């Protein structure tokens, strides 16, 4: 291998190590049976923030329920998108993430300041998060108050296909 190629190989290897530390988190796949879910989620958020170059404060509750349909990909991608947007569009390059226990499971609330003249640049983030919400019927809300962006996201996919079980016909049939 030529010297230039060896340098390229070293750069690519370095890049892969950094990226896969965030993307290939085997720990997150064990969440349902994991021992310390809070630590795993917090570590994932911190790693995503470091990868994005964004400072973050992560608030964690004392206890948390993930919910049956917790999707680690949605969770990871949401955080990564938010941190990358905060890195590019926040004057302080800093975000705040608070995890809490919602009605359906884990709820992630992410906040950051954005430059007043760059508010339009967060629209792709909002559109993407909204598209997750529409595709999987998950709860999400975005708000821009002044220059403070708040996105609340619930990465728990619920199956609503049995909702018609509540109709009177089925109810009568069951009883």
């Amino acid at each position, binding site marked *: 291998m030529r010297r230039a190629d060896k340098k390229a190989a070293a750069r690519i290897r370095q890049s892969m190590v950094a990226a896969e530390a965030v993307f290939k988190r085997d720990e997150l796949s064990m969440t349902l049976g994991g021992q310390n879910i809070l630590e795993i989620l917090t570590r994932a958020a911190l790693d995503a923030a470091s990868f994005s170059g964004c400072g*973050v*404060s992560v*608030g964690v509750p004392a206890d948390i329920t993930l919910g049956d349909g917790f999707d680690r990909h949605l969770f990871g*991608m949401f955080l990564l998108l938010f941190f990358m947007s905060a890195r590019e569009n926040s004057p302080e390059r800093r975000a705040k993430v608070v995890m809490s226990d919602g009605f359906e499971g884990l709820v992630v609330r992410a906040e950051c300041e954005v430059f007043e003249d760059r508010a339009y640049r967060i629209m792709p983030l909002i559109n993407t998060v909204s598209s997750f919400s529409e595709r999987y019927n998950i709860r999400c809300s975005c708000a821009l108050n002044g220059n403070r962006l708040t996105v609340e996201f619930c990465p728990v996919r619920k199956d609503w296909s049995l909702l018609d079980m509540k109709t009177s016909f089925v109810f009568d049939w069951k009883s």
Partner: protein
Amino acid sequence: MRTLDIEKTAGMVENDVTRLEFCDDVYVVDSSREFSVVCARSASARFSVGDDFRESLTPEETEALRRYLLSFESRPMLLRTDEGLALVYADAFPSTLNFLICYPDIVGELESSDIFALGSELGIFVPPIYASP
């Protein structure tokens, strides 16, 4: 390495990042919306948010990307674009239909055979268009 100290009770954990841990350009591309760039963490601004990633690819490379995204390949893929050699991570967050592109800062042009050799050495998926004849 950071150390984590999460108490059993509720609390805040802080992460003070003053600089990037690695300096590759990173882009998130939404494959469900015309391959537009959704988010960028870049130093050299190869793409802007909203750009079509496919515009930097030849038809052969676009086809290679399509085949890679439709395959069950879990390794990242090396892809030569107009903006330089890219690492495509489609397996990072598959259920979101978004994929990530990292541009390691590689100086100089690489021939197809070089890309093939790099892929073989590093265990990265290389599309057949770069395979040596």
